[in-house]
């Protein structure tokens, strides 16, 4: 398996996806070797619950991002070539465009099928292709799917988006959702203690956002909803966990709402903190304007926090409105505020959503279920 991120190198959802999937595949009896990029403090090689993880040093750089990705792919490719002298691989599995050239090279010199998982696309992330880099990434995504024997998508909305844009034959596509390890959320957390670490009192309500601070995550719409929420719930406090290039802009916007003292930007938080925050929150808001899946929705559902998510993409498939959470109109602060206010006002309703959500996560989104389906894709790819 090839991925540009694997814990502790955690950028987006790919690292968590690979971490969960590889361990579950090992439990099913597969031998999994994962090649990824170096990260300060992480070993060059480690065995993660049976998964052999190799971190490759990138010995050359370039200021241009795309050029840099081709350079790191060269080092990944060298590692895969060297490993192939010791390991008889059956399938090459890559995640997103970033490791495309290594995947295609490996597929050809190993003469084995390549499977790719598409977590998001450039056209979805930027909404409209404008820059030369975007066109290049879009082309690499097409190339990856063209060369792949099987393409795994994480949601039906993603499948529609990609099939239309890349004219992908439907027989190549399998829709397999993301999953989470629910055991992480089955422990006791002292909510008051967690809240107090962030200066939030026991009678104050914690409204949480977790994600990258980039426009597609729609955090500005949550910030715009803050005055409407505070009007009804003066006890609400807002924690924005995560980092990204639009953080400075969002901090300025938060200050301009007149409620800057109630909105705190935490930056990147480690996984242990992430779980505790989710389990201590009173509402989790996912205001994305583009979200092919939205794994944070599953995390919130497993953690027992009412989820308010945008009615778009994968989120609208995970969250059933009025049953396992609430769906707000995307990019609409009034709609977000209405949902958050409802969750904060009606304890019994929120509790009902939480119970339904927990059951759905246990039944549908476990790594065991997902790994079995990925395993079937591997078998099919090997037979063809």
């Amino acid at each position, binding site marked *: 398996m090839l991925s540009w991120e694997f814990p502790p190198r955690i950028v987006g959802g790919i690292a968590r996806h690979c971490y969960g999937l590889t361990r579950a595949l090992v439990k099913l009896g597969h031998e999994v070797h994962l090649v990824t990029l170096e990260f300060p403090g992480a070993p060059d090689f480690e065995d993660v619950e049976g998964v052999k993880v190799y971190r490759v040093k990138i010995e050359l*750089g370039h200021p241009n991002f795309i050029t840099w990705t081709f350079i790191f792919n060269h080092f990944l490719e060298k590692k895969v070539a060297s490993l192939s002298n010791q390991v008889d691989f059956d399938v090459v599995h890559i995640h997103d465009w970033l490791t495309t050239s290594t995947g295609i090279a490996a597929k050809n010199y190993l003469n084995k099928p390549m499977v790719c998982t598409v977590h998001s696309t450039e056209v979805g992330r930027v909404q409209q292709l404008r820059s030369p880099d975007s066109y290049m990434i879009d082309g690499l995504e097409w190339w990856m799917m063209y060369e792949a024997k099987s393409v795994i998508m994480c949601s039906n909305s993603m499948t529609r988006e990609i099939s239309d844009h890349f004219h992908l034959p439907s027989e190549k596509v399998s829709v397999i959702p993301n999953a989470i390890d629910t055991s992480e959320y089955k422990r006791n957390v002292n909510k008051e203690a967690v809240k107090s670490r962030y200066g939030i009192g026991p009678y104050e309500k914690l409204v949480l956002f977790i994600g990258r601070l980039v426009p597609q995550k729609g955090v500005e719409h949550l910030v715009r909803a803050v005055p409407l929420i505070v009007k009804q719930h003066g006890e609400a406090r807002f924690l924005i966990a995560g980092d990204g290039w639009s953080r400075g802009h969002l901090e300025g916007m938060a200050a301009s709402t007149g409620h800057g003292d109630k909105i705190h930007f935490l930056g990147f938080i480690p996984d242990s903190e992430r779980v505790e925050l989710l389990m201590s929150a009173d509402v989790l808001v996912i205001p994305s304007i583009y979200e092919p899946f939205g794994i944070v929705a599953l995390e919130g559902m497993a953690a027992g926090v009412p989820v308010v998510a945008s009615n778009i993409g994968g989120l609208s498939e995970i969250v059933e409105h009025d049953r396992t959470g609430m769906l707000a109109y995307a990019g609409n602060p009034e709609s977000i505020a209405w949902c958050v206010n409802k969750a904060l006002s009606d304890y019994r309703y929120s509790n009902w959503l939480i119970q339904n959500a927990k059951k759905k996560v246990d039944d549908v989104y476990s790594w065991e279920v997902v790994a079995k389906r990925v395993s079937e894709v591997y078998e099919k790819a090997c037979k063809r």
Partner: protein
Amino acid sequence: MPDEIYFLCLLHNVGATSSDRSLTLDEISRWTVMEPQRVRENLEKLINTDYIQKTFREGSERYHVTINGIRKVLSMYS
């Protein structure tokens, strides 16, 4: 994108991601094709936000991207 974040991306992509791969101000200026004064201003902003760390080695000030800085850069592309 703010100038200092663009600058942070350049430093990351050229590989200045640990103390043993840190660069001097002159080296950064050459890699990024930025005037030393602009480099210095960006470095100061990024040191204050803990995205860049300054070290002293072989008699000169050197700079590299911190773990937080790496995550900041990668968050743009994931």
